[in-house]
């Protein structure tokens, strides 16, 4: 899967789970500080990514991801 497609789908999931405008979801956006994702939302985000990409994520490692770009990289490794 192309990185650009992953990024587009990550943006979609983030916007849906956090109930924000997709335009607000930028590659450098920090999930906590910029997008307001608390620990409860982070569980939803991980589940949303897993469902969107039909992947299993190591939750402990996934929780270390802090930015949208980081999520794209993390997912890219799993969908290869």
């Amino acid at each position, binding site marked *: 899967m192309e990185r650009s497609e992953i990024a587009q789908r990550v943006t979609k999931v983030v916007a849906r789970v956090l109930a924000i405008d997709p335009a607000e979801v930028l590659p450098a956006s920090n999930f906590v500080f910029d997008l307001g994702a608390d*620990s409860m939302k982070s569980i939803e985000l991980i589940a949303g990514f897993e469902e969107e990409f039909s992947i299993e994520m190591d939750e402990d490692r996934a929780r270390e991801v802090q930015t949208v770009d980081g999520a794209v990289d993390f997912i890219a490794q799993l969908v290869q």
Partner: protein
Amino acid sequence: MSVSQSQIERLTAQGCTAQDWSTVVLDATTDLSRIQRTHFLGTVRVGSTAGDATVDGVSLPCGIYDATLADCSVGANVRIARIGSAIARYDIGDGAVIQDVAAMTAEAGATFGAGTEVETVNEAGGRVVRLYPTLSAQTAYLQAFRRHSAGLHRTFARLIDAEVNGARRERGTVEAHARILHCGKLCNVNVGPHAVLRGVALLAHGTILSAAEHPTLVGEGVQARNFVIAEGATVTGGALLEKVYIGQASKVGKQFSAENSIFFANAELFHGEAVAVFGGPYAVTHHKGTLLIAAGLSFYNAGSGTNMSNHMYKLGPVHQGLFERGTKTGSFAYVLHETHVGAFSVIIGKHYTNINTPDLPFSYIHESESGSEIVPGMNLLSVGLVRDGEKWPKRDGRRAPVRRDLISFGIFTPYAVEKMRAGRAVLQRLQDTTPKDKAVVHYGGVAIKRLLFKNCGKYYAQGVTRYLTGRVLDRIEATRASSWPAVQEALRASAVLRDPLVWTDVGGLLLPVERLRAVEADIESGTLKSVAEVDQRFAAIAAAYEQDEWEYVCAAFAQEYGAAPHALTRDRALEILAAYETAANGLHAKVADDSRKEFDAFAHVSFGLGMTDEERMADFTAVRGSVDTNAVVQKLRQEQDALVGRLAHLRELLAKF
């Protein structure tokens, strides 16, 4: 012996008078110079008046000064001074001090608070707990929550009648070394040994239990009517109590008011208000504007402004709430009864729906735009839960020789683990039946996001796996068997219980339901003949906790892994070890992650006013410490190291067979 004529003359010269000197009896060693300006009514016996008593840091002579005593007995080396009206119908123990008290009277036939009907949980009645001096959390629970059987209720009520009647006395008691200083009116109040009453405004119809090992303090401005206060409790700061039980080592003060409420051991109650509350052990409310009403709770912590609603303006204030052990309500949480919140859950925000989530323990229930939402199992990942689990046993402040309430500590118990198994099943069912185009489903009055089913179910699964495999591995580690068959034998359950999977929480004591039912059957049949015997039975059940827990582990393990622990092969044991490692590491990592968040950039908000970033960091570290210095974080690291060591040891152990 009755006073002699020369003694009467001496006492009269010292301003003493008597209704009838022939009913005044002095000990042979009584120093007459220490009885001054005292009026005797009825039969009064006075012991030795030797020695001094310290009052407000000043050493003052024992004896009786400026007092009226009516039908009293006064023990040895007592100081009684400046009594407003009279001390009437009291037996005063050796070494007691009673000074500057407006009045202290007891009426013939008084029960001293025993028999007080406390309308717990349901403000309109129906879950009445009758007070008596030896009340325990367990016998109170039987009264309040086991109303399903009229026969049981009737029989148990007769046992309580006996306690109430046994408390009935013709005179009140101030036991040895009690100190009652600068108080207002006391009427029909028994005071236990070494108790300290200091500046109390009013006490009526009550019993203050106390012990030399743990004196009870009732302090300034307290007004209490129809009450029992247990050993080691501190009730002060203008607390207002009416129809209330305060448990051992509890702390009440700062204008807290309570009515029709009972709180067992180690409660901390300040500022707020409680009405119709059944507070098991460790009920804590510290802040103003907090109303706890019509609720059963234990190991509970109320945030400021917590508010419960039980009225609905239909049939009256009849609605009730049950907050299973370990529940917390955040600041300004509002809960609408009926409510049943699962164990160790956290409630944040205002909830206008009836929450009914007993099978989703360790949850966060929060307010959202669409109403009330739940994140099941979220609290399993919280460092706060770990901290709570460690602090409760450490904060058991009871020092009296008798501990009245039986308390099961620990967070991961058969009770909580079985709830997690139920929660996992609920989430699995929801996952299986919810279409993917549905973002949210409702369960127990609250919304759950579909995306949470899988991971939250995983948290429960990890909790269950860690507990069950961990307990089995504990046993394997503890056996010194030299062969695998001998290990298997050590893992065999005793099979005393018919249904070891079903547990309940009886006023803070966790036990298999069938044991509770056996107690109830023995009450109803008359086998248990007194409340003391019922308490002894509960104590025996508490003593069997480890055995019952192992039966639970064996039964649940068999369901989870298809075979009981004693049927484990060595290879299967290695698989169990691997499952334990994954679950324990997984949960531990999440808790450790949560603890580190306490030091991340968000935690620095509001620190370092007018400082550079570097100074701000230094300001934060000076006040809050760092991940390298914080005790909790360090302890979690040590636990992780210990886990690694334990896993290595277990691998080594299993390799021997």
